């Protein structure tokens, strides 16, 4: 008798089969999702949307000082 694959393998196979048997619309949608995620994370996030407090300051203390300065001297 064949041994039943373990749960991990069954889950992986479930996803592989699902993607393999996906219809044309499903494939189009996945292409759109991948393009969208690429634009969002590889272009927008990396190039246009830095976390300014993380990139401009080294410690939380410096970040706090900066924000307090912004709040108390808003010029």
């Amino acid at each position, binding site marked *: 008798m064949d041994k039943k694959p373990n749960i991990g393998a069954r889950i992986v196979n*479930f996803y592989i089969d699902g993607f393999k048997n996906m219809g044309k619309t499903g494939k189009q*949608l996945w292409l759109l999702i991948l393009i969208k995620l690429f634009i969002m994370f590889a272009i927008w996030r990396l190039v246009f949307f830095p976390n300014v407090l993380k990139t401009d300051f080294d410690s939380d203390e410096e970040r706090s000082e900066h924000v307090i300065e912004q709040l108390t001297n808003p010029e």
Partner: protein
Amino acid sequence: MIEQFDSSAVDWSRAQFALTAMYHWIFVPLTLGLAFIIAFMETIYYKTKNPEWKSITKFWMTIFGINFAIGVATGIILEFQFGTNWSSYSWFVGDIFGAPLAIEGIMAFFMESTFIAIMFFGWNKVSPKFHLTATWLTALGANLSALWILVANGWMQAPVGMKFNPETARNEMESFWDIVLSPTAVHKFIHTITSSYTLAAVVVVGISAWYLLKGRHLLMAKRSIVVGSVFGLLSILFTILSGDGSATAVAKHQPMKLAAMEGYYEGSTNAGVIAIGALSSDPVDPKYPEVNDFLFKAEIPGIISFLAFNDFDAFVPGVKDIMEGYTDHEGNVVLPVKERAERGLIARNALKDFTKAKKEGNEEAMATNLKLLEENYEHFGYSYFIDNPNGIIPNIPITFYSFHIMVILGFWFLLLFLLFLWMASKNKLTNSRLLLRLGIITIPLAYVASQAGWVVAELGRQPWVVQDLMPTMAAVSKVSASSIQITFWMFVVVFTALLIAELKILFKQIHIGPKEGGH
């Protein structure tokens, strides 16, 4: 103080956030509502074993999948903007805003995406019971995602359960449950999800009406209309009821928003709802040019007093009262804005002096300033309006019209569902061509109502990004307006392209229709 901020950067940051949030909100309500409609349909299939119900479920599941695929992750762009355009805000609210969002990301998103895979891939691979469970859990997961986002939003509208730490400039969470169970958050959650269910029901009814007009998929269309109308009717009733709860929360924490929603210049007892009205371009009082006079109005007396305070005789303040101070319905004195600005400035200067004293190691001065800050912290945000108290008045025409469009459309949806159910009970749906056309026309109106609701919530609370504590202009980062403009227009192009792609795929799928027999 207003002129000291880069107003162009503030405006572009707001425009970009609004664009992204409104685009994201095109997809979210349909996901929230359609997930439950599909779950109900699959439950009927599970109980009856009738393959027609499987076909109906799978068709609406495809529509759900298209909508989900295009909408998924568009909300993450808002989080990018927090770090870049709204860094002062992100730091100021830090843990409180971060915690619900983190829970949303970890729990609901993974729950949702795991069970969506079973919904789409698992029809012949898992047992019908397990598949049905996955469908229900997808719906619950989607709605749990919404819960955490709305808890965070509710806190911004009525901040509770936290304490400001002057050493870090962050509001720190004191009570997780006070934040989660805040009446503002609870009402916001119920109102938002039930209105989303209504939108989804309108979409189901409208698309089904199109099939009936075309004489195609008649059985599927009729059954979908019945499920959609029952679900929609219950949803809109809960939306209206929860709107009552929202009005109470707004009246308590955001009286200026309530005044803007109804265009109240002066407050009154027995305050009425404007059933129909139009604002003129002339101000009521030159002292408050932000408040427009009415060209005409028809008012139902007492409704707002009752909705807000459960008392027809309760006093509801107008803009003038809020600006100049008043005594609320419980006898509490609400300070004039000018005085709140002065006390806010005491708090702001105390924060500045506390920081200076800390650097100098002067513990006595630290304690003195901490006390001053804590005593006046509730007015902190008003300090930015010391030279321009009128800056706390939101855009009244937009808030007023958005609110009334939302309410009028809400009652139209109620009537529409009743009409569809009435005609379905008489078995006359296919003959009611006018009603079927109205069903189709109502689809875009559902989106208008949904977006209008958010316009009321977010524009009506301006200038606050955190009510009374942080105005929008103090929340932005020091970034150039031109860099925000570049990303704004990039978003416009990409969002438009994605929306066109979605509509194309969606319309094609609707044109194809369900596969008969559920196979």
